[in-house]
């Protein structure tokens, strides 16, 4: 049989998921993985833990040092794909080299969105927080006498804040939204987390944006001003879709089906650069999270290698913690609400039409995955003891037959 040439753009969760699956199914195909970043594959979410001193560059590697060798794949580090030629089936690199493919995966991730704010060019020390190089640069400019302004109270902005809080003099976080972590928390939950972060020493200015920068001074749209030595821009990310412009269907992200195929023949896409159906709402959207990226990459890899795999269970889902306060959320927040605020914790379950749609857990996050699976699997709530599972997630809420299957191995 002819040796298949697999080319993968992006050396992170989605790309690695594809490599692992392809190698499992095809021992002889040629795999080339290309990355603009000149590093061994690393865990992107760990960059804040790196600054915090909770990991180091060796331990934050996403796979072992022998990963490329073991999977017999060629890793082109520090090379950027500038063009895809679907007619002649090759990609072109920034050094003008071309690489032919039979099956191509675009796992190009996302980039920080930098809003066009007047005077931004006058700010000397400004950073985004998306990559190991970003983290190294930010680290080099930290100091106990420095004041930091973070634009964006989302996951990335706040993880950055946690990572550097005790390395700087003070941190102020500004966000247009009226609450922090607005993509995963409701007002009440956000309040709990904000109080916790304020107690640790962070300052927040919400429902406000920066109108102009004048060197080290940010003038807010409410007229107030904030002085800082370091600016971190974390207002959001945008999928890297450019490579497929004019080649495949793109909405906000690259559109993929359940097999992670794009609309272009033999071109697949996975991870943060894509948009796909969220089963908790049935709507197509961007779900830029690592577990989804890995599983889409794996699914794309399987199909590239000739198998038939489908990944139709994507939902937004997130586990995040700040200074020991854990938050787990998943799905979408609509329908009836079950609330529980026992023992200083916070639980909300959103349900309707016999299905669990979403949940928020703060502090007590035990067995959260049982709720996640009810959403992912669209389990009819009438088939379980819903009032019991509302109180505490557990296998006890399932029927005896179902438990026997789960614990007796039939489901594996």
């Amino acid at each position, binding site marked *: 049989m002819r040796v298949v040439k697999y080319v993968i753009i992006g050396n992170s969760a989605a790309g690695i998921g594809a490599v692992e699956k392809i190698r499992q199914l095809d021992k002889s195909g040629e795999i080339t993985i290309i990355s603009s970043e000149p590093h061994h594959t690393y865990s992107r979410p*760990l960059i804040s833990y790196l600054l915090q001193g909770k990991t180091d560059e060796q*331990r*934050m*590697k996403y796979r072992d040092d022998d990963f490329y060798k073991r999977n017999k794949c060629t890793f082109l580090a520090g090379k950027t794909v500038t063009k895809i030629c679907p007619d002649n089936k090759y990609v072109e690199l920034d050094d003008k080299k071309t690489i032919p493919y039979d099956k191509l995966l675009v796992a190009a991730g996302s980039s920080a969105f930098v809003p066009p704010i007047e005077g931004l060019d006058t700010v000397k020390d400004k950073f985004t927080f998306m990559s190991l190089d970003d983290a190294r640069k930010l680290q080099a400019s930290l100091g106990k006498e420095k004041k930091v302004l973070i634009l964006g109270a989302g996951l990335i902005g706040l993880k950055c804040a946690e990572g550097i809080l005790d390395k700087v003099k003070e941190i102020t976080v500004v966000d247009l939204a009226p609450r922090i972590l607005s993509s995963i928390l409701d007002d009440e939950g956000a309040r709990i987390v904000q109080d916790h972060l304020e107690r640790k020493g962070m300052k927040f200015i919400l429902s406000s944006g920066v109108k102009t920068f004048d060197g080290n001074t940010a003038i807010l749209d409410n007229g107030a001003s904030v002085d800082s030595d370091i600016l971190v821009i974390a207002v959001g990310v945008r999928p890297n879709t450019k490579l497929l412009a004019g080649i495949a269907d793109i909405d906000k992200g690259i559109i993929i089906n359940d097999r992670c195929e794009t609309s272009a023949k033999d071109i697949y896409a996975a991870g943060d650069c894509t948009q796909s159906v969220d089963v908790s709402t049935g709507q197509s959207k961007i779900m830029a999270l*690592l*577990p989804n990226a890995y599983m889409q990459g794996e699914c794309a890899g399987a199909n590239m290698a000739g198998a038939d795999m489908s990944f139709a269970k994507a939902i937004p889902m997130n*586990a995040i913690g700040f200074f020991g306060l854990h938050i787990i959320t998943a799905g979408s927040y609509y329908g009836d609400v079950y609330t529980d605020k026992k023992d200083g914790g916070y639980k909300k379950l959103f349900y309707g039409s016999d299905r669990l749609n979403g949940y928020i857990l703060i502090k007590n996050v*035990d067995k959260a995955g049982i709720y*996640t699976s009810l959403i992912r699997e669209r389990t009819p709530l009438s088939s379980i003891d819903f009032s019991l599972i509302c109180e505490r997630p*557990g296998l006890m809420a399932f029927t005896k037959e179902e438990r026997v299957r789960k614990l007796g191995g039939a489901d594996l």
Partner: protein
Amino acid sequence: MKRVYVNEKWCLACHLCEYYCTFAGTGEKDMARALKGIRTNPRIKIEEKDDISFAVSCRHCKEPLCVKGCITGALTVSDGVVTINSDKCISCFTCILCCPYGAISYADDKTVLKCELCIRTADRTPACVKGCPNGAIVFEERG
């Protein structure tokens, strides 16, 4: 591959499996001494309600969502056993978010706890199975 399976009909809710599991994790010789005064952090846990009880521990799934979802690469599969590299784990709890069995837990903010089928122990037989007085937890090959 051999896995731990549970037969809830025989479970007495005696919680001995939890003690044996914690003990196996201490590396000590004498159980009573090893467990004296410590908070038990078993990797297997009993669920109980009214007269029903059963033990839950990692199923070592063939398609483990925790491993796929792990953001650090700390969870891997080796010879079918889902293992945790506590050196890499930063306790983000993404595995707890992903596990449909509720089989991953935590004790502190250093690393998560999960059953590794006692592969690191001398006789490679799970301590919970050896310690179960009623044969409600077994270690066997099933399809």
